[in-house]
């Protein structure tokens, strides 16, 4: 009787441990998104991950999007490229060119709010200054 109780509690414990691991990994972002989540400050990465990364990464089927800006290749860009791309990020989101209308029709919740645009543009300025400063 005692043995059965022990076996039951042991298997319960094992199951609990197993479950905590599996649900734990579920909460983590999809593996592909790690690269962008680690590139920039969290608040910036979260916005980029939500509204931009879907097309602007190496696995994207949208060839034009990843040719224009590919966050998977970010670290390989030259300083000049980075500054150029950053400038374009702020410009296109301010002008409402990005994310594109067609994309937003399918994913309306990915539209950037005015606060998000402001935050990204502020970051663009700081990040470019930082990149250039680190050069010298």
């Amino acid at each position, binding site marked *: 009787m005692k043995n059965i109780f022990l076996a039951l509690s042991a298997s319960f414990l094992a199951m609990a441990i197993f479950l905590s691991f599996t649900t734990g990994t579920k909460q983590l972002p999809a593996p592909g998104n790690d690269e962008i989540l680690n590139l920039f400050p969290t608040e910036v990465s979260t916005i980029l991950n939500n509204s931009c990364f879907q097309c602007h990464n190496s696995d994207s089927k949208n060839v034009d999007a990843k040719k224009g800006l590919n966050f998977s290749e970010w670290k390989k860009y030259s300083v*000049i*490229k980075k*500054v*150029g791309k950053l*400038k*374009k990020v702020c410009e296109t989101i301010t002008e409402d060119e990005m994310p594109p209308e067609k994309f937003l029709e399918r994913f309306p919740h990915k539209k950037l709010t005015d606060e998000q645009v402001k935050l990204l543009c502020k970051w663009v300025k700081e990040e470019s*200054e930082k990149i*250039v400063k680190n050069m*010298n």
Partner: protein
Amino acid sequence: MFRKITFLFIVLLVVVFIAMQFFQPGKNLEEPTEQHLFNTAHVSAEVQGILKNACMDCHSNNTNYLWYHKISPVSWYIHKHIADGKKALDFSVWGGYSKLEKIGMLDEVCEETKEKTMPLKSYTWMHKKANLTEKEIETLCNWAESYAEELLLEK
């Protein structure tokens, strides 16, 4: 009756067209100042030529107008293009841009010409010299890159 209506319609069109000529946008014809790209940086004659032929009409304060650009509504169409072009990049006020803006713009100059998104098709259609050859694009890109690098190293 039908002929009369057609005649009146044509007269009306002509009158409207003539009236339109009295409403013209301002001309983009200012003398270059010391802020102009050519006066703030050393730009080779070759690159200056490419920029003048393919970019400066919309990206500076001085447009080389063709005769039909003075006719409304073409004049308004051109006016809008120039305003948009100058908003994105105006070589006449180059000296006033920050270092970061300059680097970003130079990167775009090369990228857009390489991708053939600039000069605009509607522009090269009537400006054959603006149809840049591969060689010209390479020259322009080399200049843009080395100038951007030079700016980067500046304190």
